[in-house]
């Protein structure tokens, strides 16, 4: 096969893979809206979605319509958006920080969000004018600002950024623990704990309307910088020598991903492992080139988070686990498996 045809067929294969992933994602969402305390036949779920989205006139019960439309569909779509955003952020940060352990919360965003959330929920800061999500968002940005200031004051190299993130995370986590330990009653502590572990219950269309555009734009920006990210493989100097304006690329990508994660963490709390594991799994499927890796990461992140949300609702009968517990329970062994495979491959 001549090189052009080979490239063409590889691109076609890539598009096919994305197509398959999209179908799997839609299937996952369909299952996600059907399972739960009240299980609804998949056919009925499809009819409801078709009525609402395509304007068809199938006969379905009002309760079923309400459950699917008001609660489950927004939640399933949010899970997809959440997974896509966290996973692509992990992939981008792993490349920019040249560290395979980088993940969306490495810059202190989740620690800051937690402090912000408990300050609102337990200390009653803002006297009701700021919602829990609003407080978490402000906390996340505050932590990010401290990390950025600390990292740039210490030279701005990748290791310094990571160290700054660790230090600031520890500090904000201590603040969170301090507030919970000194000021919370048992009921509040349980509520905060639920949020800290990452939780999708209570996600509504308004949350999706807030998060989806941010995630869409941020993912788009990451995809536009796919080739620049490839050039970072041998470090920032090598990228610069390949004509990449590294300061600008870093500012854009850190900014986009941080905004995205701040919005997501403020709505759901910390959902671990998706941002760490999915990029590594996607690298096995799509290779290290970001033009293929990032779409694969986005789709895989969305699918796995929707599946994790389904599991969180069916693992324990009559009870919904925080999704962060499920992603960690399944993510940790998955990561271990990837590590062992990587060792055998090398």
């Amino acid at each position, binding site marked *: 096969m*001549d*090189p*052009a045809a080979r*490239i063409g067929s590889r*691109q076609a294969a890539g598009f096919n893979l994305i197509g398959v992933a999209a179908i799997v994602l839609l299937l996952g969402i369909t299952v996600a809206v059907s399972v739960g305390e009240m299980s609804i036949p998949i056919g009925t779920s499809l009819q409801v979605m078709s009525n609402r989205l395509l304007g068809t006139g199938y006969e379905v019960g009002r309760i079923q319509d309400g459950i699917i439309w008001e609660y489950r569909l927004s939640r399933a779509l949010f899970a997809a958006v959440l997974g896509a955003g966290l996973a692509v952020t992990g992939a981008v940060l792993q*490349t920019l920080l*040249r*560290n*395979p352990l980088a993940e969306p919360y490495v810059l202190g965003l989740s620690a800051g969000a937690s402090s912000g959330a408990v300050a609102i929920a337990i200390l009653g800061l803002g006297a009701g004018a700021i919602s829990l999500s609003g407080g978490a968002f402000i906390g996340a940005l505050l932590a990010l600002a401290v990390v950025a200031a600390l990292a740039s004051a210490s030279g701005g190299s990748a290791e310094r950024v990571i160290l700054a993130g660790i230090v600031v995370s520890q500090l904000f986590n201590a603040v969170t623990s301090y507030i919970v330990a000194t000021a919370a009653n048992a009921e509040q502590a349980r509520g905060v704990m639920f949020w800290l572990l990452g939780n999708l219950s209570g996600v509504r269309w308004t949350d999706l309307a807030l998060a989806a555009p941010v995630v869409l734009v941020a993912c788009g920006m990451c995809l*536009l910088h796919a*080739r620049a990210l*490839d*050039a970072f*493989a*041998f*470090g920032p*100097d*090598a990228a*610069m*020598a*390949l*004509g*990449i*304006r590294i300061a600008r690329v870093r500012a854009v990508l850190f900014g986009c991903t941080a905004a995205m994660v701040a919005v997501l963490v403020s709505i759901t709390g910390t959902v671990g492992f998706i941002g760490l594991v999915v990029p590594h799994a996607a*690298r096995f499927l799509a*290779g*290290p*080139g970001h033009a293929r890796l990032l779409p694969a990461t986005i789709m895989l992140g969305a699918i796995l988070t929707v599946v994790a949300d389904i599991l969180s609702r069916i693992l324990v009968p009559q009870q919904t686990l925080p999704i962060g517990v499920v992603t960690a329970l399944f993510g940790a062994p998955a990561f271990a498996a990837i590590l062992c495979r990587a060792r055998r491959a*090398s």
Partner: protein
Amino acid sequence: MTIAARNVGWSAGGRMVLDGVTLEAAPGQVLGLIGPNGSGKSSLLRLLAGLRRVASGVVTLDGRNIDRCPRGALARRVAMVEQQAATEAPVTVLDVVRLGRVPHRGLFSSWNAPDGALVDQVLCHVGLHALRHRLWHTLSGGERQRAQIARALAQHPQELLLDEPTNHLDVQHQLEILALIRRLPVTTVVALHDLNLAAMFCDNLVLLQNGRVRTAGAPADVLTRQRLLEVFGVSAHLGISPHHGRLHIQFLPPQPR
């Protein structure tokens, strides 16, 4: 006109690394940078590549201040091979060499046949075509070095900057890579530790000592018995080789004190 440094100074960590360095590479020439460890060769190459900003003086490309060249245009002109390239990413030799085409491709332009042909060609030049699908972390030091040189050649530069390109290479590949660089119609500035290789393959040499140019010129003029003793602290016997007709240095073991 090509790449030149005029009265360039640079410091790092409060220490003056380069001080008043002036040099100019003639078009198509191989200019060798020699000098002891810490004499400023690598720093000078980074300044010439525009990877660091000069503290004083100016680096010019065709007479134009390199600081004013757009990053992308610079990368289409000047390629750099640094001493130690390292990556955690599971990239293959082919991925690495393809990076050389990054500056030449638009944001949305896809990989095309001429890009692929050039990459194949440079892989053959450095003798890595058979290894092109091997993963970076399975390569030997010399293979990595050759992959980076191939990447630099894939940039299709007019100026090539090489920092110790023969490090880690066995003697066959040392000679082959330098002979290849000599054959290429590009202007090359190369930092070398091996003075015999420098004498054999460079048109001119710049001898650095403590961040200053000690002397510059043809190898036979720069490398003298007296200078080797003063700058490198070694005794040597110098002569023109009857085999290749260029300067050859035989180093003598240090005298016991």
